[in-house]
């Protein structure tokens, strides 16, 4: 039944009005030419359109379902922001275009930077990182460069709460730091004693997500920041959860020195089946000199220059950590973000956090009332919260994964499961501000109904999903056979 585009392919179809074959004179030595045609599918345009249209329908997506995937902020991204970015005036722009002919897009950069500075309280913002993780890497690189410039060569440790998102330790490691994980206290906040004990002259900094990946606001953030600073370290803010505080609390005011933001979470870029995103970073004054290239700035005549469009270092940023990618970042995502900010305005952005938190608090309360176990029942939910299904596991033998799969049958994308890792059988639930009360209620009802099924007949869950295009997939087999492409498969079979 599942046929790939290769299965629909036939050699020599040439069914395309894209590029009718012409005669060509290639001035390329034969030794450098390929001997045979690459094995690409050869299908008519209709076949391609039909194939991908059909398989697209197998996806759950925001446009079709409630998708409370914690930590991912799967909300409605206004189509207007998308439309703006598709203007041929933006799409047709070459990344190395002369500044003089790039003033429109450079204005977008300047304005977005200014707004992000206001929203975070940071002194400067760089728009080039292409995702949150790249923002982390850039921010940590700046911290490293700054410490080196201060002669602090021995500071090679980054502290990370054990519940941190995987990108945090991974980025730190990529940057050459050693990673020390700090446990959480029972309250769900970071264990302040353990943190203080870990601080030393080797501390380069602390990475924190706030609200954390447990959906909790680090209550003693000011004290924590002070402690880290006093120990000579810097504070890195993972802004993936900005949806919980946007327009209301500024990371700089909490004491952070560096921040990245996930524009694709808080600021209106649809998630594209896994990207693109953008992870702009903000830094405090003392870190400005280290910002990555390129960097837009106003010239004396009021025009805007993209510093470092060609150059690897510049007079204005001689200590820049350099370039993160070939060009200037994910322009299309930046355009969407600015459009979104203009659509919502300051008040609208504040409403985002108000309602993201309200929705989470409501769903948390309803689930708790229905007997589901909140991981931190005494804490406020922020824009997301954690429940543990360990009781259901104990009572009925069903796992969080089983619940997840069964939710698919009810038409809901499951929450993030098994993250944060420290809560057994957990769900990280992020409803977002754009889902209606009916949708929130229906999700709660589904959870209750599924638990009822678990009590009656756990196999309904353990065999779930039942209504999706495929039933539960064998991930172990996938690793064992490693069939990663049509060719490999064919090689295997022959």
């Amino acid at each position, binding site marked *: 039944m599942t046929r790939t585009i290769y299965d629909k392919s036939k050699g020599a179809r040439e069914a395309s009005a894209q*590029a009718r074959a012409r005669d060509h004179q290639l001035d390329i030595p034969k030794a450098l030419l390929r001997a045979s045609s*690459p094995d690409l599918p050869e299908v008519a345009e209709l076949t391609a359109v039909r194939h991908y249209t059909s398989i697209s329908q197998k996806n759950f997506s925001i446009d079709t379902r409630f998708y409370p995937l914690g930590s991912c902020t799967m909300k409605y991204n206004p189509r207007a922001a998308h439309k703006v970015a598709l203007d041929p005036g933006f799409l047709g722009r*070459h990344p190395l275009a002369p500044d003089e002919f790039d003033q429109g897009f450079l204005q977008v950069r300047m304005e977005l930077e200014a707004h992000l500075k206001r929203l975070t309280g940071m002194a400067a913002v760089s728009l080039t990182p292409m995702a949150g993780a*790249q923002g982390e890497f850039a921010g940590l690189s700046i911290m490293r460069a700054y410490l080196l410039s201060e002669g602090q060569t021995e500071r090679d440790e980054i502290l990370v709460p054990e519940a941190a998102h995987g990108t945090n330790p991974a980025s730190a490691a990529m940057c050459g730091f050693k990673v020390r994980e700090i446990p959480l206290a029972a309250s769900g906040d970071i264990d302040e004693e353990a943190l203080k004990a870990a601080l030393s002259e080797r501390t380069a900094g602390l990475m924190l997500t706030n609200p954390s990946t447990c959906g909790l606001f680090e209550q003693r953030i000011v004290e924590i920041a002070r402690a880290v600073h006093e120990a000579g370290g810097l504070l890195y803010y993972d802004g993936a959860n900005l949806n919980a505080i946007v327009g209301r609390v500024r990371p700089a005011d909490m004491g952070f020195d560096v921040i990245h933001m996930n524009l694709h979470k808080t600021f209106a870029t649809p998630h594209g089946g896994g990207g693109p995103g953008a992870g702009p970073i903000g830094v405090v004054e003392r870190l400005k000199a280290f910002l990555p290239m390129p960097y837009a700035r106003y010239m004396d005549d009021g025009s805007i220059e993209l510093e470092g469009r060609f150059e690897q270092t510049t007079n204005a940023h001689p200590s820049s950590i350099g370039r993160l990618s070939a*060009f200037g970042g994910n322009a299309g995502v930046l355009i969407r973000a600015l459009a979104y900010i203009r659509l919502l305005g*300051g008040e609208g952005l504040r409403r985002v956090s108000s*309602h993201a938190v309200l929705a989470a608090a409501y769903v948390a309360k309803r689930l708790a009332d229905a007997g589901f176990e909140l991981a931190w029942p005494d804490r406020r939910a922020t824009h997301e919260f954690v429940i543990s299904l360990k009781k259901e596991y104990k009572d009925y033998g069903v796992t969080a994964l089983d619940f997840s799969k069964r939710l698919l049958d009810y038409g809901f994308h499951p929450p993030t499961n098994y993250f944060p890792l420290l809560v057994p059988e957990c769900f990280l639930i992020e409803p977002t501000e754009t889902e209606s009360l009916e949708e929130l209620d229906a999700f709660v009802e589904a959870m209750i109904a599924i638990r009822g099924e678990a009590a009656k007949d756990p196999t309904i869950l353990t065999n779930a999903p039942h209504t999706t295009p495929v039933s539960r997939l064998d991930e172990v087999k996938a690793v064992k056979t490693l069939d990663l*492409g049509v060719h490999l498969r064919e090689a295997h079979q022959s």
Partner: protein
Amino acid sequence: MPYIPHTKTCVETMLANIGEQEIDALFDEIPPTLQLSHIEGLPEGQDELDVLRDFAEIANRDPKLICFAGAGSYDHHIPAAVWDVTGRGEFMTSYTPYQGEASQGTLQLLYEYQSMMCALTGQDVSNASVYDGGTALAEAVLMAIRSSPRARRAKRFEVLAASGVHPHYLAAVNTCVSGQGITLRSLAMNDDGVTRQDLPDGEPPIALIVQQPNVFGRLEDVDALSRWAKAHGVMLIAVVNPMSLALLKTPADWGDGGADIVCGDGQPFGVPMASGGPTHGFITCRKSLVRQLPGRIVGRTEDHQGRTGFVLTLQAREQHIRRAKATSNICTNQGLLVTASTLYLSIMGASGIREIAARCHENTRQLTRALCGLGDVERRFAGPVFHEDVIRLPRPASDVSAALARDWGIFAGIPLGSWYPELDDCLLVCATEKRTDSEIEHYRHALREVLGA
């Protein structure tokens, strides 16, 4: 409340249920000193109509130039069907396909994309994208280091780059790998714009990077470079323009066993230039290196009824499982652009991209022939190119190109002076399949006027 669906009653219902009077109460764990009632300087919200109008103005503020520039971003035609399908909500508004059963669309597409990239590059396995060509090269370097037995013994590693690797790619590599004790050294080029073949003796580097075609559009003697790498136990990393692979032999077929890792930028396949991003980087490699490959990888498997399905696989490499020990920190990648490239390749087929590649090659040749007729203008380097070439002008290239842009509406190419001071009088030009005879003639005419030739 724009985009927020609640009526006043909904909000009251929710608050009542929670047991609070007002939303602000939900923020009471945040120290009051941190809470702002208002953030200065943010605009008022605007209606969609106003935002669209203002952005249309911004997008089209600058005069449009006819694009003869390449250098890593190419003005190719994108079939209308590509984004019609790519833009479908089901592709565009889903996320990383963690729940395979609810994401077969994205997963099957990625599997097919991996297949296509393997076919083009001649490698065994492909990932599902990294950010761009520059980061793809950086990740490839890290892969090489991780998988090199020699590197395991060392603390500091040298990686060698052939001449003509895109300077921005090298810069990105530098930024990304310098924290891990890796130094990057570039080989000199000869007067033909390709790598000098007097390769270094002594302790060999961990890896050699070869870009084909190189940044000047020139075709390197990849066979010789590959043979040298194999002979010295050096991992070979190929950086390629995937469009060129419609014509050029795959890095797998370079001398003596070819490249171990192939990477580059997928932009030529259905992705607009769009100021350089979003696009997507690709990496393919030998099967033996698959566990070092960063990013998402999709595998084919079966469901409980034995039906074919697709899942994210080898996740144990990744940051969400492996954390500090992951192959990379990448999480969100460039899924939607991969979708566009997959559509592009399936609509074009091998014959389609071959035709496009050949047209680009011929158009650029036609362009340089036309320009080289003018006075002292000449090709800077002898020898074959794919679809970019360097011309030498009798005056500083940046002056000439500024005049061509200002007075003639032509983006004449990339002045090479800021990358290579010795090439200050040189322009890197490219004429894709979109450039017409009359546009080329317009360029010739304009250049003659500007040079007074």
